[in-house]
């Protein structure tokens, strides 16, 4: 009896399968957090309302396992749309031809509405391979009341003022910077920003794509600046065993004053802290350089082997629209990449949008801009440097060994532009 029922079910499923694939759009997403998940489910529902002929199958995966699975999907039998990241993370799939060229979606009018730096980040050799839909700013989140306690009336604008503020905070027994480097990446923000502020975006991106040795004088200079706050003891004690979530508690409990973090931290502010927290961009370190920012961009792509590319294109065009990006980012409290979208009435979002719109260029984040392999080794080096700054030479030699293995010998120096 049971066997018979199973057979019937099997036959029924077999009949359904071809039906399901016609007009079905398979979207694989990594948006497991409650807010983005709800926001995306809403976008999908409204897209479906506008396009009743398309059945969207929206699959959500945990973001860690997603990272491992996406390689299998792209090289095997892929969904029609994948969620992913801009910059190197995207380029590594473009080079072997795994992502669809989407330049045709950026028609006149649409192309101009997208933040030019974000557009650059989904472009390879002038062609676009993805749809950016959100980004956020990274900078110093701090407690104004704690700064005031230490006699700092105005938040620091440049590196010197920042170090001076650190001295005053320490004198009051307040840790200047909360940081938890257990997951390594929080330390990389410091490297990114000091490098962007001292050497500029072009140098930073050359370094990220493995064209410059880590033993280069300009890289060493980054660490020489970073060493000052390390030696002054400005960073949390015992940061190596704390996650960023654990370390933020030091700010809310008044033990630490500032934290270099992404805007997603705002969602974690306890209600009584919301009015005391403020944001400033990372201070400038060189007057004659433009202002560059880290702003991780999240993207959608169509795998080159996708079956339903036609409907996938309709979905991606929909996500490019100003009203869709506005609704999506209002719900997730992030910043739309479409410059015509409105933003949530939140002071951090408004500040962030202005900061990124005025930026002279955007980087992603250390571990999104360079190969995973190199990022992994280098970020451990950053953590070790923050604990033992005297080991700098050995740390840089180790990262450089990895760079040579991954990117090969340095190419012949290009003639000066």
């Amino acid at each position, binding site marked *: 009896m049971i066997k018979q029922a199973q057979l019937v079910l099997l036959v029924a499923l077999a009949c359904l399968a071809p039906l399901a694939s016609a007009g079905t759009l398979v979207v694989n997403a990594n948006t497991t957090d409650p807010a983005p998940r709800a926001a995306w489910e809403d976008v999908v529902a409204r897209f479906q309302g506008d396009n009743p002929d398309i059945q969207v199958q929206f699959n959500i995966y945990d973001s860690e396992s997603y990272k491992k699975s996406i*390689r*299998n999907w792209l090289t095997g039998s892929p969904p029609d749309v994948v969620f992913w990241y801009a910059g190197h993370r995207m380029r590594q799939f473009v080079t072997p031809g795994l992502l669809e060229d989407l330049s045709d979606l950026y028609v006149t009018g649409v192309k101009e509405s997208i933040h030019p730096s974000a557009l650059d980040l989904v472009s390879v050799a002038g062609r676009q391979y993805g749809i950016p839909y959100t980004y956020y700013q990274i900078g110093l989140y701090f407690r104004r009341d704690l700064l005031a306690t230490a006699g700092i009336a105005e938040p620091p604008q440049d590196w010197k003022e920042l170090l001076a503020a650190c001295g005053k905070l320490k004198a009051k027994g307040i840790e200047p910077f909360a940081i938890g480097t257990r997951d*390594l990446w929080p330390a990389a923000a410091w490297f990114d920003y000091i490098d962007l502020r001292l050497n500029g975006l072009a140098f930073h991106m050359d370094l990220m794509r493995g064209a410059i040795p880590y033993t280069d004088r300009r890289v060493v200079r980054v660490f020489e600046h970073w060493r000052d706050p390390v030696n002054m003891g400005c960073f949390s004690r015992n940061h190596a*065993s704390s996650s960023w979530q*654990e370390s933020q508690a030091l700010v809310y409990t008044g033990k630490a004053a500032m934290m270099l973090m992404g805007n997603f931290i705002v969602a974690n502010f306890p209600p009584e802290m919301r009015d005391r927290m403020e944001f400033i961009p990372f201070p400038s370190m060189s007057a004659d350089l433009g202002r560059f920012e880290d702003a991780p961009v999240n993207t959608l792509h169509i795998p080159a082997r996708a079956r339903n590319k036609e409907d996938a294109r309709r979905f991606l065009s929909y996500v490019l629209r100003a009203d869709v990006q506005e609704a999506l980012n209002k719900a997730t409290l992030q910043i739309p990449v479409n410059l015509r979208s409105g933003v949530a009435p939140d002071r951090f979002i408004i500040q962030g949008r202005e900061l990124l719109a005025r930026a002279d260029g955007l980087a992603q984040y250390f571990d999104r801009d360079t190969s995973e*392999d190199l990022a*992994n080794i280098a970020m451990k*080096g950053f953590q070790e440097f923050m604990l033992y700054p005297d080991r700098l030479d050995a740390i840089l030699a180790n990262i450089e060994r990895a760079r040579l293995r991954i990117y090969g010998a340095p190419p012949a120096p290009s003639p000066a532009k």
Partner: protein
Amino acid sequence: MRTRRGLSTVVLLAPACLLFSLFVVYPLVRGIALSFYEWNGVDAKTWVGLDNYRELFADPVFATALANNFRWLCCYVAAPLLGFGLALLVNQRLPGMQLARSLFFMPFVLSQVVVGLVFSWFFHSRFGLLNEILGGLGLATVAPLDSERWSIYTMIVAGLWPQTAYCMILYLTGLATLPRELTDAARVDGARRWSLLRYVVVPQLRPVHFIVFMVCAVAALRSFDYVMIMTLGGPYDSSTVLGYYMYEQTFLSQRYGYGAAIATVLLALMSCIVFALLWHLFYRERR
């Protein structure tokens, strides 16, 4: 008769052999084969011969991981000793021993992930219970998980807790199977506490010792859960072990060939230890 027996042997063994080949032998061979390639999971695989192994044996992180596995192995010898002591203790016929037995056994029932979390909170330098206690007593606080020297031992301590419970259970079952006549006879012959333990109980438990040591050796070599939960191999690479380094190289650094090479070395190492123990057992049995 003979051929029919042979036939039924084949038929009875076939499913196990098939499953074993499919799910153990085949992946094993594929894994070893992969260690001769360079592959990032996307591009075509490149044959590199023994390059992965050459790099591995010059890799300081591999040396650290190997040394940490060795430390883990040495420290895990404590589990059988403690477990045996506990087993002797809770084997006494005293009121309340049933409860004590269940309590000592409890950590083994907990998932290793839970044990790892509990210990990482206990030892946490800023919010941990240990430092709350030390601070309350006016003593200096400690940060073992932040130390390149001590973080590995912190995890071993966490691992020893359930491992001891496991050894205790193995010894308890061993003690239960000891023939009473033997101990009674020894008592008649004048053996008392220490000599009874030393010359009667311990030698009688030889098969249990063997199982317990093997289980501990394998557990020490496969240690991964505690590293994943408690330190992620950190600070930097100081507390990594072969199992975690393999995972990290394969899935975080996307070096599938290199990860496979680490796995192959780990496999060889584990086989050596298990074969050495097995050989020892058979040798002793024959003698």
